[in-house]
């Protein structure tokens, strides 16, 4: 083993190396050690061995074959007795130590021994007898020289006050080559402490036990190099040492400088990230790059689209600056050195994937800062590192607190974030984030600034947090660092502004990532094929209508009128423009129209203005917001933000939102859903695959898919043969096996037990019976068209292909019927999810609409456009049209009256008031200290569909979400479900007493009516205009119409008193500020006694409501609030016109 014995080595200590030895000798050491085998061999322990030392050309002061002593395993060391007390120091003695060190890595907070006397842990020695020692201490990712001793009181108890530790405030990056470390100290004279790194003097502080006038512990214990404490891993250096010397005199700065003379270290020796050059960076933007660990070839390959990331094991890689993820997997530009949202990783099919954990984000830009001194502030949730031109300026800790107690009842303390943040006047430091500051003196020239940060880590939820670099010049307020003159204040408001812009930008980049040419080409070929197949089907004749008393806007009306005429029924007249716009806006983007949109529409005199309004609304992103909640219901999207249990799924809402934003064709949508691809916990369709605590998740999914897209309700078949449907349990299990990609063994728990002989249901399967994957219904074509299957062996793809096959028109018809019901109130076939035993009201129309979908790229918006442009949709709502009759007798004289959905109601209320939700983050793991298995963050909702059940089954006040609760209360009151364990196609809409009461008395309604400074109504009220005009605007804003004479009179009467004197002049500094919440309750501290009061305080603030504006005289303000109240409580607000 011992390479010290190699003859070559003997040569190494010859003349070439003597130059450096001479330097040491000139300072008169007590002793010094190199890899000279003759001298150190007897002293080696535990596998210390010879390795390559510092050598030319980087270190010309050493010989070309210089060796060092390597320490690879814990306990590897040099050990020697303190003969004659050479290494024993007392008060007023001076000690100097110098060492060349290469450190391969340090654990978080580790103290690795370079050299020390005492604290060896040898038998008979006291545990704390640290005579002296020089260590490397990990802090913020850097290795910092740290001198330590225990004082002469020789206390055997482990109190900090007996320790004295001086640690440098800067250090070097572990893993980045050779460094020279030196210290000098005269015991008893704390000011005498000096340290050097690479020849330069470094600052430091007595950071444990404080400075002392006492001398050191002095005994006869051994001197150990490379470890201490019995050779424990925590005390052991991983790396190599060379030219170690101990002196009984002070080293001079000149002498130390001379040691490093001529050194040209390679800075990025083991940092795998490529260096950045000014030329490669974008102009006026910050480049974002993502680096991942071990992205396997299979993962990266385009063919591997079906991988389910949630099946992978939890990551096992610790975050570490010495283990940087080497593979660049994405890059784009952003406006600033900060991120509110990341562009997700997408599969080639446009489905969200998980990145490996941890992964690294590198923000870089060419920045020209004015000459002079700049203060920089960095923040990140998992360690950030700021460098300029490759030189590290600052790093922040991976974890702001120590590991923390693991026992539930030993909760972490509740921190006042404002109290701990380094700079008070900036945006609040959010829980779990660490920060650091640095000073940069600019020469006024462009420099490469790079900010690296980690996301995720071993058993840690991959949380981006709010990474940022902000800068202050000459004491100016901090702003986010940018590469161009664009400006974002680094305040809470500034961040909100920045985050809105950056999110929108990230969403654009994400959309581009999803629009992969190959995928789009594939679907184009599928749709071409569909048109060919549709042409082979018998054509559907549109009825010819000659009766001129009906209004026909398009073919849909012809089908409807044909039946109306036969029944002798009347068609409702077209709704007026204002009603039309309100109805269409709600039906397309889920909101009431803005007053501006209403005014513009009413003023528009083009004859085709309705069609153009329809096109404009359909083109916007609101379509997704209107449809995500529908599919959440139908597909039973049921995530839990705390320990998923009861039939919970992953949050595949993000998949839904992506697909709907892009308006994916419905066959692509369903194929990606059935594929259950990508991330299970972070928004891929794989989240649909999950059904926690379910003995057969795929049976559950088969049932959901068949009712959603084939209107085959197989719910009963889950446990027994369906008594009222032609489905056997075996049919459902066969589809389940297709989803499982394997035969299914029937679990006994899935079979109804104890049925008696008279039962009208039967169980035809046996426990343990094996059901093979196949599609059981012969009524559908089960042999996909040529070229459709990309992986013919995959039974999931087969199932998706069968369902979406253009020859199987059922799929298209089910979808257009669902759309029809959403827009008209009743389905052509109703119920929409179960077509057994019901006949369509208009079979021809159903076929025709389905054919339209098939021949128009499966684009649901195309069919929506047809329906919205029909007179049938645009008619005035009548009692006839709203009446519940048998499906086959339905005439669609008019659309049926529909109530706003829970989501539409909440979104519209906030649109009307012009306010933001200001909900808490839907997340219990704010500090990102837990696994993604147990915790999810669903973010800060901007639209109502983003809410989720608040998971306080534990009934703990400290787990309350008082700002989100009023939303989920109102949503649930109007039919939204806080748990979607089962699919639902039609919500119950019967009114109940709680609905108006909750709006009228609850916290949410109070926020809408309260005239705070952020209310659109306040702005309206401050306008200098006659009261009559205000009332007009009020009605337009809330009810999208003008007031009737009677209403106008009533509102005038109520608002006249005090109107003239309503405005109070108030300086902006007098405006009330929203209270700043600086303490947060979360999972890690929720059992701490201080945590419940934090939630109670927040609840109190929420109950108090938005602070009223002082700009309106209170008595009149209350009058207007009462007027607004009346307009949102009236049924008119809650029902579509």
């Amino acid at each position, binding site marked *: 083993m011992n390479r010290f014995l190699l003859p070559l080595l003997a040569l190494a200590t010859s003349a070439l190396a003597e130059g450096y030895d001479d330097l040491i000798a000139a300072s008169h050491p007590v002793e010094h050690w190199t890899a000279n085998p003759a001298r150190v061999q007897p002293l080696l322990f535990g596998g210390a061995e010879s390795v390559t030392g510092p050598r030319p050309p980087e270190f010309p002061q050493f010989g070309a074959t210089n060796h060092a002593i390597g320490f690879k395993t814990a306990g590897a060391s040099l050990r020697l007795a303190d003969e004659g007390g050479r290494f024993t120091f007392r008060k007023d003695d001076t000690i100097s130590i110098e060492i060349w060190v290469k450190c391969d890595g340090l654990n978080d907070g580790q103290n690795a021994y370079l050299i020390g006397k005492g604290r060896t842990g040898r038998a008979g020695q006291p545990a704390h007898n640290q005579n002296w020692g020089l260590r490397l201490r990990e802090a913020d990712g850097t290795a910092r020289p740290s001198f330590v001793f225990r004082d002469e009181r020789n206390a055997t108890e482990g109190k900090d006050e007996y320790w004295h530790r001086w640690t440098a405030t800067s250090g070097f990056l572990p893993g980045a080559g050779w460094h020279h470390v030196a210290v000098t100290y005269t015991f008893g004279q704390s000011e005498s402490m000096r340290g050097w790194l690479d020849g330069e003097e470094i600052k430091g502080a007595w950071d444990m036990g404080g400075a002392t006038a006492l001398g050191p512990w002095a005994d006869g214990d051994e001197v150990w190099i490379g470890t201490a404490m019995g050779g424990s891993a925590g005390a052991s250096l991983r790396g190599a040492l060379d030219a170690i010397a101990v002196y009984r005199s002070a080293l001079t700065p000149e002498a130390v400088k001379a040691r490093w003379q001529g050194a040209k270290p390679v800075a990025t020796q083991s940092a795998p990230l490529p260096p950045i050059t000014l030329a490669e960076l974008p102009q006026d933007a910050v480049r974002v790059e993502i680096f991942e660990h071990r992205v396997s070839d299979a993962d990266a390959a385009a063919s591997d689209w079906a991988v389910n990331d949630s099946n992978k094991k939890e990551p096992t890689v610790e975050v570490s600056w010495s283990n940087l993820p080497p593979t660049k997997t994405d890059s784009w530009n952003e406006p600033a050195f900060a991120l509110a949202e990341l562009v997700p990783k997408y599969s080639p099919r446009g489905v969200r994937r998980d990145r490996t954990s941890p992964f690294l984000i590198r923000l870089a830009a060419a920045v020209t800062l004015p000459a002079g001194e700049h203060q920089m502030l960095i923040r990140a949730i998992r360690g950030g590192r700021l460098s300029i031109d490759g030189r590290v300026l600052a790093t922040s800790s991976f974890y702001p607190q120590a590991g923390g107690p693991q*026992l*539930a*009842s*030993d909760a972490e303390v509740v921190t006042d974030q404002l109290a701990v943040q380094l700079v008070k006047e900036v945006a609040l430091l959010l829980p779990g984030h660490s920060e650091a500051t640095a000073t940069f003196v600019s020469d006024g020239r462009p420099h490469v600034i790079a900010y690296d940060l980690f996301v995720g880590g071993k058993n840690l939820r991959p949380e981006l947090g709010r990474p940022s670099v902000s800068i202050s010049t000459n004491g100016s307020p901090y702003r986010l660092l940018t590469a161009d003159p664009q400006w974002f204040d680094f305040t809470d408001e500034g961040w909100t502004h920045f985050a809105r812009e950056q999110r929108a930008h990230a969403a654009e980049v994400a959309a581009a990532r999803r629009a992969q040419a190959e995928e789009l080409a594939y679907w184009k070929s599928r749709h071409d094929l569909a048109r060919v197949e549709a042409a082979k089907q018998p054509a559907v004749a549109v009825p010819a209508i000659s009766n001129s008393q009906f209004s026909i806007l398009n073919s849909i009306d012809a089908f409807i009128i044909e039946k109306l005429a036969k029944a002798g029924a009347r068609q409702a007249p077209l709704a007026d423009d204002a009603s039309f716009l309100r109805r269409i806006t709600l039906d397309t983007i889920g909101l009431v129209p803005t007053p501006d949109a209403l005014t513009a529409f009413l003023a528009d005199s083009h004859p085709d203005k309705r069609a153009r309004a329809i096109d404009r609304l359909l083109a916007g992103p609101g379509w997704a917001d209107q449809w995500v909640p529908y599919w959440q219901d139908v597909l039973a999207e049921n995530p839990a933000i*705390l*320990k998923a*249990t*009861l*039939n919970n799924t992953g949050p595949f809402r993000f998949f839904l939102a992506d697909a709907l934003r892009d308006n994916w064709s419905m066959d692509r949508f369903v194929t990606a859903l059935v594929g259950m691809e990508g991330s299970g916990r972070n928004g891929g369709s794989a989240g649909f695959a999950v*059904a926690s*605590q*379910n003995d057969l998740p795929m*049976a*559950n999914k088969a*049932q959901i898919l068949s009712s959603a897209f084939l209107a085959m309700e197989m*719910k009963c078949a889950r446990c027994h043969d369906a008594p009222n449907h032609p489905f056997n349990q075996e049919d459902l299990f066969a589809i389940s096996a297709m989803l499982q990609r394997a035969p299914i063994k029937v679990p006994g728990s899935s079979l109804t037990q104890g049925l008696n002989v008279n039962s009208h249901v039967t169980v035809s399967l046996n426990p343990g019976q094996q059901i093979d994957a196949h599609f059981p219904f012969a009524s559908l074509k089960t042999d996909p068209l040529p070229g459709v299957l990309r992986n013919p062996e995959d039974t999931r793809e087969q199932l998706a292909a069968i369902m979406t096959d253009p020859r199987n028109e059922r799929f298209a018809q089910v979808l257009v019927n669902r759309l029809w019901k959403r827009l008209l109130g009743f389905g052509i076939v109703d119920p929409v999810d179960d077509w057994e035993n019901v006949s369509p009201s208009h079979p021809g129309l159903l076929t025709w609409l389905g054919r339209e979908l098939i021949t128009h790229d499966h684009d649901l918006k195309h069919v929506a456009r047809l329906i919205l442009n029909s007179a049938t949709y645009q008619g005035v*709502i009548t009692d006839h049209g*709203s009446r519940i009759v048998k499906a086959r007798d339905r005439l669609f004289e008019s659309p*049926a009256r529909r109530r706003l959905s829970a989501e539409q109601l909440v979104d519209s209320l906030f649109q009307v008031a012009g306010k933001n939700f200001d909900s808490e983050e839907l997340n219990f793991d704010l500090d990102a200290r837990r696994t993604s298995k147990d915790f999810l963050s669903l973010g800060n909702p901007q639209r109502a569909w983003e809410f989720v*059940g*608040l*998971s*306080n*089954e*534990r*009934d*703990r*006040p*400290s787990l309350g979400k008082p700002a989100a609760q009023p939303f989920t*209360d109102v949503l*649930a*009151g109007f039919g939204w479900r*806080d748990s979607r364990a*089962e699919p639902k196609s039609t919500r*119950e809409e*019967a*009114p*109940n*007493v*709680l609905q*108006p*009461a909750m709006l*009228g*008395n*609850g*916290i949410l309604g*109070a926020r809408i009516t309260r005239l705070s400074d952020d209310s659109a109504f306040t702005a309206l009220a401050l306008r200098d205009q006659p009261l009559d005009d205000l009332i007009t605007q009020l009605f337009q804003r809330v009810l999208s119409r003008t007031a*009737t004479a*009677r209403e106008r009179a*009533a*509102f005038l009467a109520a608002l006249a008193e005090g109107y003239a004197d309503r405005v109070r002049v108030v300086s902006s500094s007098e405006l009330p500020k929203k209270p700043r919440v600086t303490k947060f309750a979360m999972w890690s501290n929720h*059992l701490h006694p201080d945590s*419940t009061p934090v939630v109670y305080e927040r609840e109190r603030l929420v109950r108090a409501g938005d602070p009223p504006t002082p700009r309106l005289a209170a008595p009149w303000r209350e*009058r207007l609030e009462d*007027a607004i*109240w*009346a307009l949102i*409580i*009236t049924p008119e607000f809650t*029902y579509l016109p």
Partner: protein
Amino acid sequence: MNETTDYTDNTDREKGAGRVLPIRVIREICGSLPLHLISPIPIMNLSRRDFLTRTALATGALALPRFAGANPPSAPLPMGKAEHCIFVWLGGGSSQIDTFDAKKIKGDGKKVAGCYYDTIETAIPGALFSEHLPHLAQLGEHLIPVRTVNHNVIDEHAAATNRMHTGRLPSGSVVYPSLGSIVAHQRGAALDGVPAYVVMGYPSATRGPGFLGPRAGYVYLTDTRSGPAGLALPPDISPERAARRRDLLATVREEYRGRITDPAPLEYDEAIAEGFRLQGGDFMKAFALEQEKDSLRAAYGDEFGQRCLLARRLIQRGVRFLEVGYNINFVNGAGWDTHNAAQKEQHKLIQGLDLSLAVLIEDLKANALLDKTLIVVAGEFGRPAQFDSGGGRGHHGKCFSVLLAGGGLRTGQCVGTSDDLAMNPVEDPVSVPDLFATILATLGVNPRKNAMAGERPVPLTDNGTPVAKVFV
């Protein structure tokens, strides 16, 4: 309300929790309730006679084997005649051996398993309580500790909570209703104009109506001071403003009604009117706890006690089912989930439960409501006799206690016997479906009856059979 005493301030808990009031004193306080607050409870309707008939049969069936499985499904079911239920929820899972199934074997909080406290005798033959339940021990004549409830979900609170609220394993195809929703659905409110089901605790799906739909849902509150979410008039709305609001609304509503012909918005309009009636009606007056005598409010104790008092007041106004959460987690950090150090302060929770529940029982009795009101005290599971490394207790579902009280049952007896450490049933195990069947039968609801989940019949309990011996 007395200006100087805030009964809901939990700093009072320290004073209240350890207090021992002689039952005699409690009775005096409860018995001197002003007469006008004792409102009549409705007479049973016709269908109740039906139940009476069957109950008579069930009395004869007492000689039959008493427990689940042994009772053939065709046998007549025993039926009780309780009108209301107060379901006290000990979220987190209370320790049976430290409460209602105390054992002489004393643990040391470390290696030695056993009861954490001394035991005391009770007025029930064969039943030992822990020393921190002195009041309830004396009220044994009104209690039935069911000591052998068991299920197999212990790894996760939410799942076990669901089990102890729905009585079932979750299913992917049907969301089962909670006990409160079943009762609300089957029996409705006892008086018009009040909700049938009220939760004092955080809303959750597990407490919800499942397939029974929103009408079997609940009204909830998390704080007795602020009243139920959405029903209490906001404090900043003066009567003058309320009137102005109603006037303006009336105009807009009328104009709208004049324009439409279809029924749905009219129903909503009617719901608005009903809301005003509810708000001004008797139900909301229940929340004016300050109407009660100070001595009674003080006797009830902290926020949990005030919830119990509110429960009594709501029952008097016709609420059928009340779930009263008792999990104030800053008393001991973790509520009843007494892992590790939370065990050390557990006695405070137990003492609070003891005192408030004792006062509730006496107060119900003084108001002639105890026989008509079933009290159930349950959590999601129990806890083992062993201690974890932090000196607390983990989860244990194989055998734990649920306390029944009042309800016109044959109280003063135990159901089930556990082993020396209250870890396994020795005699008469009671499954969760049997427990649910017992509760439903006590409330006059046939546990075998089907409710419709769409077109699908689902029995109210999962084949549960009432424990016959508790019925009179």
